[in-house]
């Protein structure tokens, strides 16, 4: 393996390539089944509107799961995520159409404890709205 994170020697300030992810109602239904989170605000507009949301919203941990792909794909399979956290700053309303919404994920390395720990600050935006805040992940490198 030549293109593992270990060989790329990331430094604080290194920016991950931005990634975009699309979320549709279909994704929400699929994630509800896979995660076991059947809270109706993720599939029923009436339930969402009853508590003041404009409509069905994405699961926060789905957004986290998508965002961390930006990190995993950058780091390669030799890295494992040992810590990952995020606050869901704004709900992501997912319209009942075929297009869905597009979330842009960015990450910046903030700390490297060589040889084996890399801390990355993550953000996710929907247009100009920040949807994930106070988010970071710590990667541990495995031998290889």
């Amino acid at each position: 393996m030549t293109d593992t994170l270990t060989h790329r020697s990331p430094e604080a300030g290194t920016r991950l390539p931005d990634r975009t992810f699309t979320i549709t109602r279909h994704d929400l239904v699929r994630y509800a089944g896979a995660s076991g989170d059947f809270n109706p605000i993720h599939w029923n507009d009436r339930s969402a509107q009853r508590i003041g949301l404009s409509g069905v919203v994405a699961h926060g941990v789905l957004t986290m799961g998508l965002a961390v792909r930006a990190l995993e794909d950058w780091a390669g399979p030799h890295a494992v995520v040992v810590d990952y956290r995020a606050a869901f700053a704004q709900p992501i309303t997912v319209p009942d159409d075929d297009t869905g919404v597009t979330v842009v994920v960015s990450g910046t390395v903030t700390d490297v404890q060589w040889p084996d720990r890399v801390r990355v600050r993550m953000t996710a935006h929907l247009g100009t709205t920040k949807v994930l805040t106070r988010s970071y992940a710590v990667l541990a490198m495995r031998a290889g």
Partner: protein
Amino acid sequence: MPLDPSFIGRSYPPSQPYDVSREKIREFADAIGATSPAYRDAEAAKALGHRDVIAPPTFAIVVSMKTNETVMFDPELKLDYSRVVHGDQSFTHHRPITAGDQLVSVAHIDAVTSRMGNDMITVRTEISTVDGELVTTAKSMLVVRGEDA
């Protein structure tokens, strides 16, 4: 009616063991589009130094949420689940959750606060193997949206 802060510090009995399967991991990885071979192929996972297929870092929510329902639906807590949204989440992995694990979780209420008509409750879920090896700590802050908030 605001949530009762005297619930802070309360712990719930351990969950029934959750059997982590390769298929559930694959289903979850598909749902978030995670492509790492370590999530899908036991041989690839072993070549990377794992015992078997490992789970994506957010998979722990599958285990913790099941356990946290005991808290959410605790009749004494009087929490209106229909008004709940997720506020924040953290996962601390002592090692990756791995296919074949039998996981037992214990939920603890770490915080109960109220702000601007909303209630916030933080539930920490300690996830261990049935043999007592601590695997993951998951923390969920849930917001119970107020009627007028």
